């Protein structure tokens, strides 16, 4: 005999203003099977929860309906309260009287009637609820971190410090990411290398961290707690176990003039190379596309000079499987290609460079040894124009969003330039200066007041190169209300921040969502900023949205905390709302197996004691099933049902209307 309690929440005025809650609870009390019908101002508060707990015990309730907000908001809260009073939490259901009723209606009489209907529907459902037990799955306490920039390094170090194992995968030959390319960092002008390289060394030497550089994720199987990830170890052609990093090979390599991406193309490297001298691991790889030995079978000099015999031209890509329980995606960003702006030279003007190129010019370890020299003729520029929002906040040619970091790094660039070229002129064109952050506004003021950067509010309409090599920059000074023309020697464009190429494919491998610009989607923009919709996959750094270093490091540590929280118990509990197959009626037509979007439905052989196969049926993997119900809807023999949302319950809900 059902004994249902109905609890109606006013949600302050949110529901109470539009719905006559007392009338709803009075109507509910008369519904069949209902023994308690009450209403209260804030049901989620402690007195409200106490009211529910007390009724469960005193009235011996077999089911509870809470008429309040969306179950997404407080279902967990109320189910926990029910469990404390000894009721199976899955015997509590919520009727959404706020989002589905009071917030969308204005007529009180109609809204009250609809609220009563919604409660009646849930009473019909709760009468057919079964007690469910959470599903337990074992957890492999090893994390995979994808991306070896500062985000990945920080996340890996924090997880490792928590005593758990980490596999850190980086696609390039060295970890360090973009931060290793920066000269100094805002707002303190710390040398980027000085604060980063010790962490790179720490990550490489930490006993809990396995470093896989020059490697990429090839495929992903499994689910939270139990992922099997296949890593493609790209052919290095150098055996890292034998190599000592002496450098004989890349000092002798005759293929010299390959633009080094690490130096934004301003410097050159050999065909066998380490991207920069402080690389971790400090062991070279051969760039197969440029190596004459690998392309034409001619040369072989590096193998001849290597004292350790570490060069192996026969090396091939290898696939390696790792078992991990959680994943942190930290794939970072790149700069948008300003070639799309014809008015800025369409990428053809050599002295119009991007922010990374300026970083390399200003860096002590850069191709000019930290001297500001322009690419075309190596002369020191006497006037440098910095142009912010190049491709950002421009939905016609570039991106709609603000890239967030450019205001600050442009102020830093102007400052560094003035520190290095005292008589030089630094002109910054800006739309707005967005310097929100600790010490940020002060930093920009310092660039303007102490270091004499000239800030011009307005856009640049055209950059042309004059015969004498000067770049003629024409724009608007919108504060003075007049056009300006500046003859510059170097122009630095603050190109928009965009995700790395291939980031969408990686997201698809892990089942992670991404937005129209390719940035990874967090589970909730405010309350779950490091989780994704895929359980056990977390985000860190600029792969989610443009971020500076402090924010990236914070998010990486947050992701690490989430991973450690997941690993804190040997087993995971998850919601038991999953599909079940009735093996006696299943005809093994395999419709559910082909329909399942998560690969959870699979074949299952029923065997006798001797192991002889009696019959094949469909089965559902509890770990993989997300409870979407697709299988139940395609099953022709009604052999699949969804726990907590059975066909019987849905039909009863419809009949109650």
């Amino acid at each position, binding site marked *: 005999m059902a004994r249902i309690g109905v609890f109606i929440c006013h949600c302050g005025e949110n529901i109470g203003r539009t719905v006559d809650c007392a009338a709803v609870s009075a109507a509910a009390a008369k519904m069949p099977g209902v023994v308690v019908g009450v209403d209260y101002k804030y049901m989620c508060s402690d007195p409200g929860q106490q009211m529910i707990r007390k009724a469960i015990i005193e009235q011996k309730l077999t089911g509870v309906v809470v008429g309040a907000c969306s179950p997404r908001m407080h279902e967990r809260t109320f189910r926990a309260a029910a469990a404390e009073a000894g009721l199976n939490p899955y015997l509590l259901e919520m009727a959404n009287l706020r989002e589905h009723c009071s917030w969308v209606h204005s007529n009180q009489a109609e809204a009250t009637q609809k609220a009563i209907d919604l409660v009646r529907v849930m009473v019909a459902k709760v009468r057919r609820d079964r007690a469910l037990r959470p599903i337990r799955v074992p957890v492999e306490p090893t994390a995979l971190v994808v991306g070896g920039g500062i985000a990945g390094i920080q996340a890996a170090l924090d997880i490792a410090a928590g005593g758990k194992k980490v596999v850190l995968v980086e696609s390039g030959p060295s970890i360090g990411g973009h931060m290793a390319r920066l000269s100094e960092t805002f707002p303190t002008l710390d040398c980027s290398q000085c604060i980063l390289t010790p962490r790179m060394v720490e990550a490489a030497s930490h006993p809990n961290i396995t470093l896989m550089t020059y490697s990429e994720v090839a495929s992903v199987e499994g689910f939270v707690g139990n992922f099997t990830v296949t890593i493609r170890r790209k052919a290095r052609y150098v055996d890292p176990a034998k190599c000592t990093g002496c450098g004989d090979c890349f000092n002798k390599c005759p293929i010299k003039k390959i633009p080094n991406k690490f130096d934004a193309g301003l410097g050159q490297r050999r065909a066998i190379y380490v991207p920069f001298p402080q690389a971790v691991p400090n062991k070279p790889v051969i760039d197969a596309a440029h190596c004459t030995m690998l392309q034409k079978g001619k040369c072989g000099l590096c193998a001849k000079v290597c004292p350790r015999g570490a060069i192996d031209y026969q090396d091939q890509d290898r696939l390696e499987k790792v078992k991990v329980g959680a994943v942190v995606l930290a794939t970072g960003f790149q700069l948008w290609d300003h070639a799309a702006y*014809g*008015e800025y030279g369409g990428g*053809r003007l050599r002295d119009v460079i991007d922010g990374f190129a300026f970083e390399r010019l200003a860096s002590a370890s850069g191709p000019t040894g930290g001297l500001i020299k322009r690419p075309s003729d190596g002369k020191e520029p006497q006037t440098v124009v910095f142009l912010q929002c190049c491709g950002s906040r421009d939905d016609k040619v570039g991106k709609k969003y603000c890239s967030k970091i450019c205001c600050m790094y442009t102020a830093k660039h102007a400052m560094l330039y003035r520190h290095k070229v005292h008589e030089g002129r630094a002109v910054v064109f800006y739309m707005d200066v967005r310097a929100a952050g600790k010490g940020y506004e002060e930093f920009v003021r310092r660039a303007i007041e102490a270091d004499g950067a000239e800030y011009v509010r307005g856009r640049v309409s055209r950059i042309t190169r004059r015969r004498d090599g000067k770049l003629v920059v024409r724009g608007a000074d919108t504060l003075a209300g007049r056009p300006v023309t500046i003859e510059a020697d170097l122009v630095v464009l603050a190109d928009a921040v965009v995700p790395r190429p291939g980031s969408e494919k990686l997201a698809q491998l892990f089942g992670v969502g991404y937005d129209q610009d390719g940035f990874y989607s967090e589970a909730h923009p405010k309350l779950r900023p490091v989780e994704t919709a895929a359980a056990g996959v977390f985000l860190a750094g600029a792969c989610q949205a443009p971020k500076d270093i402090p924010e990236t490091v914070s998010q990486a540590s947050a992701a690490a905390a989430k991973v450690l929280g997941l690993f804190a118990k040997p087993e995971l509990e998850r919601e038991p709302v999953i599909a079940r197959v009735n093996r006696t009626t299943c005809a093994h037509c395999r419709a559910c197996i082909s329909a399942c979007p998560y690969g959870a439905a699979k074949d299952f052989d029923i065997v006798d004691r001797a192991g002889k196969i009696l019959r094949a049926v469909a089965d559902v993997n509890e770990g993989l099933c997300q409870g979407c119900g697709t299988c139940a809807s395609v099953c022709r023999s009604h052999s699949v049902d969804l726990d907590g949302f059975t066909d019987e319950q849905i039909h009863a809900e419809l009949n109650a209307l």
Partner: protein
Amino acid sequence: MKTLGYFPGCSLEGGGIELDLSVRAIAKAAGVELREIEDWNCCGASAAHSLNHSLAVALPYRVLSLAESQGLSEVLAPCAACFSRLKGTQVRLTRSPELSQRMQEVVQRPYQGGVRIININEFMASLLEAGLAQKLTRRLGLKVVAYYGCLLSRGQDIVTGDDAEDPKGMEAAIRAAGCEALPWNSANECCGGGFSMSKTGAVLDLSQAVLDEARAAGADAVVTGCPMCHSNLDMRQLELVKRRRVPGALPILYLSELLGLAAGLEPVALGLDRHFIESRGLVRGGV
């Protein structure tokens, strides 16, 4: 023989008559019939849209309507301003059924929206694709700069298929004529446009800047498709030469003239004798 609607506009009957002559000549050489729209009227350029929005749409609307009723599904408007007015009106009508309805009442003519307007650059590109390229037997060997001005580069919905900030629509035709299209800085800078009469001083300054850039790039001639640009760069150049503001005369050619020369047509048949700046010497051996 392919037939194309033809909208000469006022310019091609007056100051820009060379454009009319050369377009008709090259079309004939390519085997395309140009059928002038009967009873066409002014497109409204430069005056109407600054006075009365309704009139600025009604004038091109009538032209479009006439073309449609005369069975012309594709119309060439060689003048850049006419092209901009006609295509711009077409785009606006497509977007707004209310505007179409209103225009139908104002002009008292129906228009279903079935006319495609093409400019001189698109026309030349289509002729080359249809076989004109093989007929361009005289290799001119000139170094030229392609000058688009505003109306053959701007209006994102109007000049489709080219980059407003880095236009390239003439370059294939220039190369087909055996010429080199030099990179330069003023391809879509302003010539002074319609201020030729009212603010001649400003036009002289702007045209001089364009000519200076063309000369700095090493051009033998400037190639354009717009009669307004042509008159500012050609006619006003006389003044600049006289005042010694430019070191010498720089010929200004229509794209259709350049292709006509390459096709072996007589310079006079193309209207080269009508330019203020002598340009007949560009063809090797003179005329």
